[in-house]
């Protein structure tokens, strides 16, 4: 608690990029508008002036080519950080990510690991409608060969890149659009972030809320409201979406006996579904109530604010889901 600095999530990401560029000459950043414009969400503002055109590379609007080039450059000995503006745009590069980044190590019998880091914004909350707001993390988390992380806190936003760059595998880093402006305390000693470990964000005895990304903060708001009514929620921040940290989830469940999964993805085929099934497989007898899920409604994210909010797993829906587990005679 002693040594803290206040900064935004955006600034934390930027500092991590700066640190990576300083530490390793093989690191460079490329993507659409990362240079002259300063980054679609201003993450890389000023880095072009600081590091020059060779290391901060503006690309054409060619997601497949520049993501593939990042994979190729990684094969060729570099440590590229590729930025894609949003997860929706990353679909134009799915071929490269799924058919190349995720497969080359395996198909080559281990000869060609792909140490590329691909960052992209994700999620709703800024009224950007249905082609800029989706949460498709589950699609990437489905794919063996990829590692998928989503930092939700200032500390993790600051620390995850170092771990991702040190990893020999392709790492997809999701940055929730709605968190870039969030500010908070950066713990000075918080540079060590594991790629595969969840963490307990808030301890509680009555119910476990499993979440990640922007929904972590929806859970925090819900937990405060629940606490006022005497229900203490424990919050698990997954951080890593592939691999999932089953042990941390199950350990929390053993303490609380109830679990609600909060996921900004659509319910059908969601990460929430995967987590629920893992709990059933490994922790069924620890459950005192059915597993509940709060996911995004199954609509393309609408533009008007009230509809966008209604679609998302807002705190009041989380509170209702938790209270549902305590009603009747559980």
């Amino acid at each position, binding site marked *: 608690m002693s040594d803290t600095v206040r900064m935004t999530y955006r600034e934390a990401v930027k500092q991590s990029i700066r640190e990576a560029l300083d530490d390793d000459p093989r690191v*460079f950043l490329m993507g659409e508008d990362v240079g002259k414009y300063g980054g679609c969400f201003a993450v890389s503002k000023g880095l072009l002036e600081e590091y020059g055109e*060779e290391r901060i*590379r503006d*690309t*054409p609007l*060619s997601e*497949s*080519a*520049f*993501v*593939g*080039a*990042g*994979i*190729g*450059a*990684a*094969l*060729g*000995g*570099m440590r*590229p950080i590729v930025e894609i503006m949003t997860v929706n745009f990353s679909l134009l590069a799915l*071929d*490269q990510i799924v*058919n*190349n980044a995720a497969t*080359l*190590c*395996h*198909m*080559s*019998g*281990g*000869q*060609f*690991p792909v*140490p590329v880091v691909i960052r992209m914004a994700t999620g709703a909350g800024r009224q950007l409608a249905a082609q800029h707001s989706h949460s498709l993390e589950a699609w990437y988390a489905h794919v*063996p*060969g990829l*590692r998928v992380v989503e930092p939700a806190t200032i500390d993790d936003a600051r620390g995850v890149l170092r771990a991702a760059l040190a990893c*020999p*595998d392709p790492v997809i880093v999701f940055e929730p659009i709605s968190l870039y402006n969030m500010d908070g305390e950066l713990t000075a000693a918080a540079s060590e972030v594991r790629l595969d470990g969840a963490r307990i964000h808030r301890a509680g005895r009555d119910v476990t809320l499993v979440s990640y990304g922007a929904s972590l903060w929806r859970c925090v708001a819900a937990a405060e409201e629940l606490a006022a009514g005497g229900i203490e929620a424990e919050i698990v921040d997954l951080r890593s979406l592939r691999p999932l940290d089953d042990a941390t989830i199950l350990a929390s469940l053993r303490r609380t006996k109830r679990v609600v999964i909060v996921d900004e993805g659509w319910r059908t085929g969601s990460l929430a579904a995967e987590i629920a099934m893992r709990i059933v497989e490994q922790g069924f007898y620890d459950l005192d109530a059915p597993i509940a899920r709060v996911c995004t409604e199954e609509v393309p994210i609408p533009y008007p604010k009230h509809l966008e909010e209604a679609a998302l797993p807002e705190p009041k829906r989380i509170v209702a889901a938790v209270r549902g587990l305590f009603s009747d005679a559980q």
Partner: protein
Amino acid sequence: MNDLPDALTRERGLHLLGEMLRIRQFEDRCAELYGAGHIRGFLHLCDGEEAIAVGVMQVLGSGDAVVSTYREHGHALARGIAMNPLMAELYGKRSGCSGGRGGSMHVFDAATRFYGGNAIVGGGLPLAVGLALAEKLQGTRNLAACFFGEGAVAEGEFHESMNLAALWKLPVLFMCENNLYAMGTALARSESQTDIQAKAAAYGVRAAAVDGMDVFAVEAAVRSAADHARAGRGPVLLEFRTYRLRAHSMFDAQLYRDKAEVEEWRARGPLITLTTRLKAASLMIEDDFQRLQHAADDEVRAAVEFAGNAEWEPVEDLARHVYAEVTS
């Protein structure tokens, strides 16, 4: 066509012919092994296109990177991947050059910087751009050579990659093997502009059409292109005009083309024409051909034996290599 390079020696001529014969003999045997069930999955043979593989590889250095397609046995052999691990890969054995994980379409080899065997049409082009970028950023004179078929030019990744490589002046050799058919779709049925090398002009990329049946023409064009790329003047597109004499894969009844067309091209096959030219120039005799053929036969026979005797990967290792095995 009958003009041989002035300085051509008998040894050089026989070397090139021998390299092409190795590919031909290897793949002819592969077709038999497929019929016998030793090789499974998809098997794509490059019969008719050997001069491109051999011509290109005469120019590349050991530091250069190669990205290939699913029709890559010729590229792999000409690049220097030994026949034993290549055949073992086609068998799916653990001593295959990709550890048996890839098969015919996914040949990889770190020692020769051979980055696959990409079976998504067009999918290898961005990789080559990135490999070239890595060389440029590391200040080497190495280049990335990328093979693809004419079918790939209909893919967005061709255009995106050409643009990016030209924009950043990257040392990429875009090597299009135009065999006139994308699987069963004739070029004119899929492209509004069938003069493929002409597409490069839109990106300010140097380009040329090359007789892909003539190993000397291929080698000369690649040498010039490589000099251009190594000098930092950007990528080059070479369109090698060639023909696939066999079916697309082992499942192809070839309903889309006339037998007469195939026979016409067969007469222009790179092995036949090179043999004829070398004999006409008194650089070889029939005995030389027999000797090269026997040598290739012996090598293939040994490879088949090696692959047949090789071990399967134990099922317990199924999940290996999904993620890198860190040894540090």
